[in-house]
């Protein structure tokens, strides 16, 4: 600490500027070295545990595991067989990959637009704002892990019952209490009057039927947008209003460019989140494979293929979006 004091004193004397510069550099470096202590837990964990796990995982995707009597396991090198199994022999894996890609292409715009819209709404001053924010925050806490897996179990059970219903010819009685939000027929009837394209109709119908899951997935994104909206200085809005801009113009000319880095972050987050969530079709399938014979190595290979795909899409999305981002320069 003596050094810090000395530097402060040195600031007064112009002759000592050179000395000060050199010393502060070394102090900075000395402090920088202390930084290693702070990140030590992560560094140790990453090098000793995480990295070996990644390496092992890549290795395991090229082998076949044989349990050895008396404890332990014996890996046998099989080359690319697990990968070729996943891509060529297992028919449902590739179809599920494509399915989840379609799902993603559908989900990203829906979730990002919805969460931006809701964040703008919730950012306005009104009565009961705290209550609405709390309600919108519920899915973030609740709809992960166990509850999600219960939903998956329920829908599986329902699908099974429908299968048996068809075979046995009895009436299905599985209309549940919660799933009757809006009937698809109503939406279709509503839209059939307007002469819009069939594809738009199917998209809207899909959005409406998926509205629950979209709301559920948009929680974190909404919070990120809210934080972003609050960081925009009110002075800008004020000057816009004085100049006579309407709210519509203000949104597109001020809010939208200012929030565009958040749109980027949220799109990336949505991609990662929907790819790794427990209810993703591929993840469900990988989990299912994991339990089967030779499934552990095969599911590892599958998830590496899947991860490569995710990386590819992330890079693609990032490349497309980063061309349009506006960064406010702050000093």
């Amino acid at each position: 600490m003596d050094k810090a004091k000395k530097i402060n004193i040195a600031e007064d004397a112009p002759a000592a500027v050179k000395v000060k510069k050199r010393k502060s550099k070394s102090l900075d470096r000395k402090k920088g070295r202390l930084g290693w202590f702070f990140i030590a837990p992560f560094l140790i964990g990453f090098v000793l545990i995480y990295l070996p796990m990644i390496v092992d995982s890549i290795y395991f995707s090229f082998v076949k595991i044989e349990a050895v009597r008396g404890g332990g396991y014996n890996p046998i090198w099989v080359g690319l067989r697990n990968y070729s199994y996943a891509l060529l022999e297992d028919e449902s894996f590739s179809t599920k990959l494509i399915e989840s890609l379609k799902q993603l292409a559908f989900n990203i715009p829906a979730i990002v637009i919805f969460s931006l819209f809701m964040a703008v709404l919730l950012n306005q001053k009104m009565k009961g704002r705290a209550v609405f924010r709390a309600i919108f925050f519920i899915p973030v806490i609740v709809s992960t892990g166990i509850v999600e897996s219960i939903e998956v179990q329920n829908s599986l059970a329902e699908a099974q019952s429908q299968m048996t219903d068809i075979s046995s010819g009895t009436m299905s009685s599985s209309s549940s209490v919660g799933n009757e939000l809006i009937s698809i027929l109503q939406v279709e009837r509503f839209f059939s009057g307007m002469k819009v394209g069939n594809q738009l109709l199917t998209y809207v119908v899909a959005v409406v039927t998926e509205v629950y899951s979209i709301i559920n997935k948009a929680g974190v994104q909404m919070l990120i947008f809210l934080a972003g909206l609050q960081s925009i200085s009110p002075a800008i809005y004020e000057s816009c209003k004085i100049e006579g801009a309407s709210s519509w113009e203000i949104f597109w000319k001020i809010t939208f460019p200012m929030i565009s880095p958040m749109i980027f972050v949220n799109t990336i987050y949505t991609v990662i989140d929907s790819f790794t969530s427990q209810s993703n079709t591929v993840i469900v399938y990988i989990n299912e494979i994991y339990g089967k014979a030779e499934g552990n190595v095969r599911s590892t290979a599958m998830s590496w293929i899947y991860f490569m795909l995710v990386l590819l899409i992330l890079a693609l999305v990032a490349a497309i979006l980063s061309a349009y981002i506006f960064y406010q320069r702050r000093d």
Partner: protein
Amino acid sequence: MDKTENKIKKDPSLMVFDKKTSFWVLLRYKYLTLYFLKKVLWAIFRFVLLVGISYVIILPYISKISGSFMSREDFVDTTVKLIPKYPTLDTYKAIINDNGYWSAVSNAATLSLLCAFVQMLTCAIVGYGFAKFNFKNKKLLFLCVIFTMVIPHQSIQMSMFMKFRYFDIWGIYGFIAKTFGLSSQATPAISNLLNSYWPLGIMSFCGIAFKNGLYIFIMRQYYKGVPDELEEAAYVDGAGVFKTFVKIIIPMSIPMLVTIFMFAFSWQWTDTFYTNLFFTDTEKINLLPSIVKIPKSLQTEYAAKITYEKAIRNTCGLMILFPLVIVYLFAQRTLIEGVERSGITG
């Protein structure tokens, strides 16, 4: 006096409203304007929309709650929608008695508290390290943090299992044991850490557990917003780097820490992936995922079996969420404040 009134008549925007202005004047100049009408219409539209979406969010929980009180007959009765005709607590009783609810909750509470606390501290420390210190390869190391965030944990599912089943850092012990013939096993290891709190504890301590990358990221962004002058003042007053961190930085960032704690706690609480992976033997340690099953006393075969079992599973979910809701209610204010201040905005 007359002059000002005339002026106002010519241009109503000059008018100043206070408590003395009569109702009719107010009505004429304030409430019956297009501007006010627009505002009211927008407020109504916004309110309806928000209520509608809140309804969509809350309805499933309401229907789950009402379903949990329904008896077996209610599921066959088509007239029953939300309010059960024969309300009963049998489902709750059966889950508590048959599925070992209390032991699961206490085990999960220990595990989640442990993990959340350790993760909170680790992520704060690591985040501070990344935010305020300049050292070599900092960017590369931070890229590693992002890396742990992006990799889907299904990719390392198996190697994670193997790592803690045959726990051995870098395989050093295994190599020694193999070369010297100390062990008869094909893959010797220091110990088997499955079915204990160790795997999650170790991963939490190292900041590589579930979503820890996100927490480190959030803490880093937060600490970046803390002005350097604050720490410099502490240094000038004679505190070291560590003392500054403990005495100034940590107390300052309590809302953020609570947020991280809550996230870590609730995500660990509702987690199925790691619990199913590391706790293979439910006889030994009974955790929350294992109580999601149909209790023995309620197993039946009848027309609405699927719906009934669905309701039972949902009830299990509700009972799992119940302790979480209580914690959430207490921490709600700090939590939302913390999330809004999390400075993900950069």
